[in-house]
């Protein structure tokens, strides 16, 4: 059984994007004003995730970098759609929430792919020693 890994910057980014998706999907399960109030916090959380990706991307391998760059683009879209959702109502609000969830989900996906790339590179380096 492998030892529990020391969490590095990419693991932290992954945790924050997972948290972001959780917050958005929880908000989507609510109704009316409660959903909108929760959605208001999303652009700020997305920005925090973007900032932490940007500060960690330089030290990553090429494959991880590619996924993290994609994640930034998707988190920017998350920000935009959440902002649109806060201003919208009715069907437009539902659409914006769906887009926000989809963007956040895709962003987490890319970050977890970066984690997998990092782990694979680490395992290969370990095997060469």
């Amino acid at each position, binding site marked *: *059984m*492998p*030892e*529990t*890994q020391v969490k590095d910057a990419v693991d932290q980014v992954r945790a924050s*994007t*997972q948290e972001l*998706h*959780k917050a958005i*999907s*929880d908000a*989507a*399960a609510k109704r009316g004003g409660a959903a909108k109030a929760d959605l208001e916090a999303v652009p700020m959380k997305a920005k925090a995730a973007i900032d932490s990706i940007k500060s960690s991307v330089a030290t990553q391998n090429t494959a991880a970098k590619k996924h993290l760059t994609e994640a930034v683009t998707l988190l920017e879209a998350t920000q935009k759609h959440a902002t649109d959702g806060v201003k919208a109502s009715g069907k437009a609000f*539902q659409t914006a929430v*769906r887009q926000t*969830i*989809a963007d956040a*989900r*895709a962003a*987490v*996906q890319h970050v*977890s*792919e970066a*984690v*997998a790339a990092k*782990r*694979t590179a680490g*395992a290969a380096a370990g095997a060469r020693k």
Partner: protein
Amino acid sequence: MRNYIAVVFDDTSKAYEGLHALWQMDDEGAITVHGTTVVHRNDWGEYQVDSKDTHPALATAVGVGMGALLGALAGPAGAAIGAAKGAAIGAASGGAVGAVTDVARADTRDESRYETAWVLGYGQSAVIADVSEDTAFMVDERMRRLGGSVHRRAYGDVRDDKWFGDYPYDYYLYPYEYVPPYSPWWA
């Protein structure tokens, strides 16, 4: 290698143990889990998918997407979706079947392409996961110890599946360990 896996358990509680074990293995760095959900088949043969989404439109989307993913994973008629022809796949929230979708087209697929077709029997549950793993052994062994049987299909193969290629499967898998508040895991 990146794979979609389905781990079938006879017992719902064991399925949540399996779900937890996968995320634990991720935390240990043994595998990387990209997303998971738990699918249940009740005593009447209906399928339920764990989901937070309670809006009817979202529930329908989850039902359709998971139906497609289960079909892509389980194979043709006689496997999970084939057995469910005409039955319901719903987004289970609060224990209710949230939506009904027609999955009859699943039985038109080519049976010979699948060597590991599996059946989700009445009362069984399956953990569906998208994972990156260097070897199948670790997941297989851990799940075997919990009483689960693992069925695996390469991520790329599912993506290339001509019948189900348009569905964004990942959307229906939670990118973290999600256990619904009503599940027996909390009992």
